[in-house]
């Protein structure tokens, strides 16, 4: 019975934790601009994420080592700095875009102007980390995250043509605006294959004291959880397509996405969207700040846990505080959140190899994972998708910067 509870909880937390500002914004923009045509990017990103999340849980369960700590030990100190610095800076940038999403949600609900919300949102997240424990945060943020199921309800009320939607799951060349098409595809993959999720998930597995018996359970929760999560992103894309395309609206600014549910649920739709966006972003902020703290603390061997009082894990708490302050500072600058979001997702795709290649090597090292090493399937699937995301990013980011 305990295993069943653990599985359902695992699935629930991954559904709630899946959608955040990146997946919301990129899926909505893809739907509005290219209809179902970019569904394949979500499918690829989710498949890759399923393998990666399963691997990070397995690593933690078998080696009792979270991802960041294992990377430092396996590749040694100087090499380890590269993923450390890259993922920390990327974490602050993605956190800033989550803060942008949260601020927009608060502005939609209250109608009060937007840059003022950024420091307040960061302070609220910091307060929850300062006082809360890991289980409160992981379970709470994800249970509230279930509000994002409102997009699934919206999809069924719109009665999409499922066969045409399925056709979108097969990669196809763009009929117009090729640069924009590939840039959004890269942003979608960067949004779904979020490296911070791996550090958070593996540290959580260690905090929850997983062991080898949890490996099969982890395989089920990772697969089903991320599958439902991916389905949510697809729901957002389908709703955006069916609402914005017939009205001739393309998403240029974040607040254009807000009335996405109003044609289906009227005023309820407006506030449900704002609540879903705000809660999803707030949950993601907690996860990102914690994952940067896990990365740094495990890397340098400090004491790290969210279940102790901040004074007992001083440097760990200092790192997540600094991450939140960094995100808030970028948020205050008030650069258009959609721009930060898309670029930070595209940069995530470009930096994926730095985070994923060492992780793949770790998962093939019997010294760490014993007989639970990777099969050739997970190795090839992850390598192929990460390589695709990287090539697309390296091609489309310069073009996008040149274009805008």
């Amino acid at each position, binding site marked *: 019975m305990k295993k069943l509870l653990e599985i359902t909880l695992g699935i629930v937390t991954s559904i709630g934790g899946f959608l955040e500002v990146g997946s919301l914004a990129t899926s909505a923009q893809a739907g509005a601009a290219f209809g179902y045509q970019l569904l394949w990017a979500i499918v690829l990103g989710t498949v890759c994420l399923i393998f990666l999340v399963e691997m990070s849980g397995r690593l933690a369960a078998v080696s*009792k*080592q979270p991802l960041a700590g294992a990377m430092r*030990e396996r590749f040694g100190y100087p090499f*380890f700095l590269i993923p450390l610095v890259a993922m920390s800076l990327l974490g602050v940038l993605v956190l800033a875009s989550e803060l942008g999403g949260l601020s927009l949600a608060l502005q939609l609900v209250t109608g009060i102007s937007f840059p003022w919300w950024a420091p307040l949102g960061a302070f609220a997240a910091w307060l929850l980390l*300062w006082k809360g424990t890991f289980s409160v945060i992981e379970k709470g943020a994800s249970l509230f995250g279930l509000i994002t199921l409102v997009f699934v309800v919206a999809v069924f009320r719109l009665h999409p043509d499922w066969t045409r939607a399925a056709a979108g799951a097969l990669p196809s060349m763009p009929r117009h605006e090729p640069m924009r098409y590939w840039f959004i595809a890269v942003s979608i993959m960067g949004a779904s294959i979020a490296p911070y999720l791996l550090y958070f998930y593996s540290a959580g597995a260690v905090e929850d004291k997983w062991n080898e018996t949890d490996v099969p359970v982890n395989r089920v929760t990772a697969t089903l959880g991320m599958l439902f999560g991916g389905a949510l992103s697809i729901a957002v894309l389908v709703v955006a397509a069916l609402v914005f395309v017939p009205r001739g609206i393309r998403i240029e600014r974040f607040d254009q996405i807000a009335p996405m549910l109003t044609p289906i649920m009227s005023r309820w739709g407006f506030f449900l969207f704002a609540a879903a966006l705000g809660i999803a972003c707030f949950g993601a902020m907690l996860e990102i700040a914690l994952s940067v703290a896990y990365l740094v603390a495990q890397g*340098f061997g*400090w*004491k790290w846990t969210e279940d102790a009082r901040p004074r007992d894990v*001083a440097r760990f*708490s200092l790192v997540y505080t600094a991450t939140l302050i960094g995100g808030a500072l970028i948020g205050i600058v008030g650069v258009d959140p959609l721009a930060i979001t898309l670029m930070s997702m595209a940069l995530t795709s470009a930096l994926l190899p730095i985070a994923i290649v060492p992780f793949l090597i770790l998962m093939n090292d019997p010294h760490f994972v014993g007989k639970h090493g990777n099969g050739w399937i997970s190795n090839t699937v992850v390598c192929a998708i990460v390589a695709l995301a990287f090539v697309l990013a390296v091609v489309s980011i310069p073009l996008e910067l040149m274009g805008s």
Partner: protein
Amino acid sequence: MDIDVIRDLLDKQLVDREGEPLGRVDGIVMAYSADAPPRITCFELGAQTLARRLPRPFQGALAWLGHRLSPRGSSPYRLEVSRIIQLGRTIKIDIDGTRSAARETERWVRDHIVARIPGS
């Protein structure tokens, strides 16, 4: 018992008697003399040791940062190999972590920054 010094010791997690983290093995000191087998004498911890392991251009930056952060200045902290209780996934050292200098920076950050914030 055979030991691969780099794979089994370098960058490993150090813990004290109670299993509380002390830091990682940032450096390993070997006593070398021409006519006797060299012996591994102690582990080194600290930003200064880490700085020396960086390629030349970055060394200055991290050493400066390390000097700023660790109040005791730049001399690295050393733990004698003779105090090892257990070698394994982590290296357990026979010392009391709360008073050891290895956690001096942790204590400094706690007392000067974290403890001052309410609710910590």
